[in-house]
């Protein structure tokens, strides 16, 4: 259950972003620009059809990670985390509050990207739209938590940005986005098996290209959900009361 404290934090996160009009506009426009460019760059529709599910998963991971990571970092750099740490609010509530706050925006972005991909870029897909969307929700939950967790290791925005090439980029190459995982050497296949994007890409392809249902991709869903729970627990644990500096 979401506690009232967590709800207060979530409401504030939303309030903050809504009042920051430029950031809000960027959150909504950037995914559209990116998807348009990607869509135009594919010469053949069939290639795009194959790549699209992986792209949906990758962009959801990338945008959610970045948004949550930077905002959570600002909470510490502007000193408000210190106030929260002294207050009666629990670490779990802080993480859950942030998760729900960003989740709203990450979900909006994902929905924009998904609808744009299907209706404007005209990507062919099987499976149900709502099932694709539910699957993406699980992907985003993990990504937002990953952003929060990672930001506890960065002391400023500059350091946080360095985590993108370290955490996001390798997953793009190792998780079957561009070529099948099976074509990589054994040791890289092992590595891909512990990266969440592998399961996100697998699951979405199975739904969108294979016409499978959420139950068919249950294993992938379970692994992604497990990842989200694990990483949010770690995020709460790394938020020590003394970790404010």
């Amino acid at each position: 259950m979401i506690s009232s404290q967590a709800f207060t934090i979530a409401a504030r996160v939303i309030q903050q972003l809504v009042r920051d009009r430029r950031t809000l506009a960027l959150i909504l426009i950037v995914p559209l620009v990116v998807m348009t460019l990607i869509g135009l760059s594919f010469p053949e529709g069939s290639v795009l059809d194959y790549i699209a599910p992986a792209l949906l998963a990758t962009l959801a991971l990338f945008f959610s990670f970045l948004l949550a990571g930077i905002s959570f970092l600002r909470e510490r750099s502007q000193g408000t985390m210190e106030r929260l740490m002294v207050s009666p609010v629990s670490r779990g509530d802080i993480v859950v509050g942030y998760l729900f706050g960003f989740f709203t925006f990450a979900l909006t972005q994902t929905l924009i990207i998904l609808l744009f991909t299907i209706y404007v870029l005209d990507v062919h897909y099987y499976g149900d739209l709502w099932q694709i969307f539910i699957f993406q929700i699980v992907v985003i939950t993990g990504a937002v938590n990953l952003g929060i967790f990672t930001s506890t290791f960065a002391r400023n925005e500059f350091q946080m940005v360095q985590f993108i090439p370290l955490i996001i980029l390798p997953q793009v190459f190792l998780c079957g986005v561009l070529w099948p995982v099976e074509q990589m050497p054994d040791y890289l296949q092992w590595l891909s098996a512990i990266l969440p994007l592998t399961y996100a890409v697998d699951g979405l392809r199975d739904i969108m290209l294979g016409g499978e249902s959420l139950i068919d991709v249950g294993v992938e869903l379970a692994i992604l959900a497990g990842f989200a729970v694990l990483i949010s627990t770690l995020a709460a644990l790394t938020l020590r009361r003394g970790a404010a500096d």
Partner: protein
Amino acid sequence: MPRGISFGLLGPNGAGKTTLIRLLVGLLRPGAGTIRILGQRPSRKMARLIGYMPQSHSLYAELSVIQNVDFFARIYRLTDKAERARRVEEAIRLVDMWTRRNDAVQKLSGGMKQRVSLACAIVHNPPLLFLDEPTVGLDPELRVTFWKYFTGLTKQGATLIISSHTMDDAVHCGYLAFMRDGKVIARGSPGDLKQATGSPEATLEDAFLHFVRQGAAE
């Protein structure tokens, strides 16, 4: 330590004032020894009894004054809507920011942000307040205004622990601790500390230097 007074932690930069305050509010854990606040160890249970104003403004820049104060009121579990609205207004009025309540914090001057920061720390009416260099960077006029706020709070029964490196603040305190190099070198009422120098016209500044010299001699 007596209640209902301003307790000044005085000392130069790097004396350990901030570290001591952060230990007391539970942001840092002591390497050795124990800390007792209001007779208890610092814990989340007693967090509602404590107010904390960090050295930096520590506010949400995009949000308005009232949104900031209201957020902390909610965080401190002022769940009753009418009661919360009353406390939020009281806190903002106390720091004379009510007319600017709808302005975004990022548009305010440094001194105004400092006042909002104080409002956030007192909104839940804590009996014990830790203020880390609350007057640093304020012009003399505003410093006097801040002391007016502080005196108002102690009159209501709150105990204030205020760190500062200027003796302008020390004169307002009911009780003082001089700090240097991580140690408390002297403590007592301003009168006692001045008397210890042996000179009747001694200022608090003289007293501080007296104890520093005494420490060096030992």
